């Protein structure tokens, strides 16, 4: 499966006759694929948590990365965001980003909703949102975006002066998503957005994520809640102890007996 993927990108690589600046725009295949990960490996001391995985996210798509605890899902997202040392190649809109620092990666258009939400408990809701605009110079557009996310999450608007640490779990998850939107990301990486939330809230979060996707943002979704993730994803990958063991459309995987048995109970 991964071999097929790699061949495809090789073909895409041969199209590069144009100037490097236009490459991602003119190379048809390259512009289709917003994120491409090749042979990613992450080590923690002697343990290799991610053992050479390759996958891709097409522009406008929701891709789910599902697997049990410790399969290497979070490590993959942290590597993409540039906060974890790794080997392998990561291309965003056809450009390599694996040598960039985390700040530059955010500036390119990748934002993450981190595991455990990562809300700054000592900052107010509004300050949490403002922090994510560190790289932006378009102050007026930031104000518009702030209004936009408060429209999207009225609960946050009510609590804008409250400290992040005083929010409920569901509100914190909404804040984490809103904060990622404030970077004007083209690709959102979501690490377990359903974790610790009541089923009704999980549905609401997923509905919001689908809305965000409809509005044009690509999503890479990491989940233990495999059924929910595969339902909304156009493609999915199943991760087991650092390897991709299965790949297909979201529907194929959700219906696959092995996935059903292992993850859906």
């Amino acid at each position: 499966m991964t071999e097929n993927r790699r061949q495809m990108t090789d073909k895409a690589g041969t199209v590069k006759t144009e100037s490097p600046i236009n490459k991602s725009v003119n190379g048809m295949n390259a512009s289709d694929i917003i994120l491409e990960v090749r042979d990613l490996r992450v080590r923690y001391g002697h343990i290799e948590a991610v053992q050479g995985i390759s996958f891709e996210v097409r522009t406008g798509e929701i891709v789910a990365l599902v697997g049990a605890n410790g399969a290497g899902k979070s490590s993959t997202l942290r590597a993409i965001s540039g906060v974890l040392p790794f080997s392998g190649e990561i291309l965003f809109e056809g450009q390599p980003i694996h040598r960039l620092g985390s700040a530059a990666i955010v500036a390119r258009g990748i934002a993450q909703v981190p595991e455990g939400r990562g809300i700054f408990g000592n900052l107010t809701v509004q300050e949490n949102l403002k922090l994510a605009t560190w790289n932006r110079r378009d102050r007026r557009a930031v104000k518009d975006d702030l209004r936009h996310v408060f429209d999207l999450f009225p609960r946050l608007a009510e609590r804008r002066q409250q400290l992040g640490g005083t929010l409920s779990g569901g509100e914190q998850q909404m804040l984490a998503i809103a904060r990622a939107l404030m970077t004007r990301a083209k690709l959102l990486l979501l690490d377990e957005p359903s974790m610790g939330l009541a089923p009704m809230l999980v549905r609401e979060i997923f509905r919001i994520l689908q809305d965000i996707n409809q509005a044009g943002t690509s999503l890479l979704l990491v989940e233990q809640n495999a059924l929910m993730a595969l339902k909304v994803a156009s493609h999915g990958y199943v991760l087991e102890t650092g390897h991709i063991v299965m790949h297909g459309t979201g529907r194929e995987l959700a219906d696959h007996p092995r996935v059903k048995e292992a993850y859906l109970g």
Partner: protein
Amino acid sequence: MAYLFQQILNALQLGSIYALIALGYTMVYGIMTMINFAHGDIFMVGAFLCFVAATVLGLPFIPALLLSMTGCALLGVVIERLAYKPLRNAPRVSAVITALGVGLVLEHLTLVFSPYPRHVPALWSSATWHVGGVTLSSLQALIIVLSVLLMVLLDWLVRRTMLGLAIRAISWDRTVAAIMGVPVDAVISLTFAIGAALGGAAGFLYALAYPVIDPYMGVIVGWKAFIAAVVGGIGNVRGAMLGGFILGAVEIMVAAFLPSTYRDLIAFALLFTLLILKPYGLLGQPRPQKV
């Protein structure tokens, strides 16, 4: 009564200097959870830069102050990059030992330059006012006003600017701050620069107020300012200011109304009692568990 007012003025002068130094400890602790024990020696370097500005360079007041502040800011950044950054993920005790070592290096480098105490000439032709038995020198007024001005500026920076937002975010969770696009290394260096600049300003003002300086002057003053930061609640900017003024007041008042040989004994007994009552310091708070 006049005596009391006089002592209040003295307490404000000493307290504002402690407060400026305490800010450096608290800012570095806030962002890195590390005690920068070299900070007292950065203060000392600020005092010696004041001496150099006043004697060798013959600079007027404002440029001399800026020299002390920028010189110490640069020193702070160099120390952070060379000595602390490589230890960011090492055990805390390694960083603390390194900080003590950096302090010794600064002391002995200064010792090479100046093996005996120096007298700092007045940069300021100080006027003196007498109001109802209270004596106020313009230097004393300047020290208090300038310190308070710097503290207000810092408070505004931490609470109201994007840089302050980034500093507070990093102090909560460095990795998430990085994920949000904050250039963490640059912000940490800037924090060191700001803390060291305030320490430099304190050294400068101290050298003018108490004009005999030596390479070890930063040790005791540094320890005291560190205690002031802890009493105020280390990591808390307003706490450091409060702690500095409290320490200044306690020291001056004990010396003014009790036998002065007991000054430090009584002053610190009082401060430690305060810590027993408020273990996180006056304005410090135990950090709530992350959900």
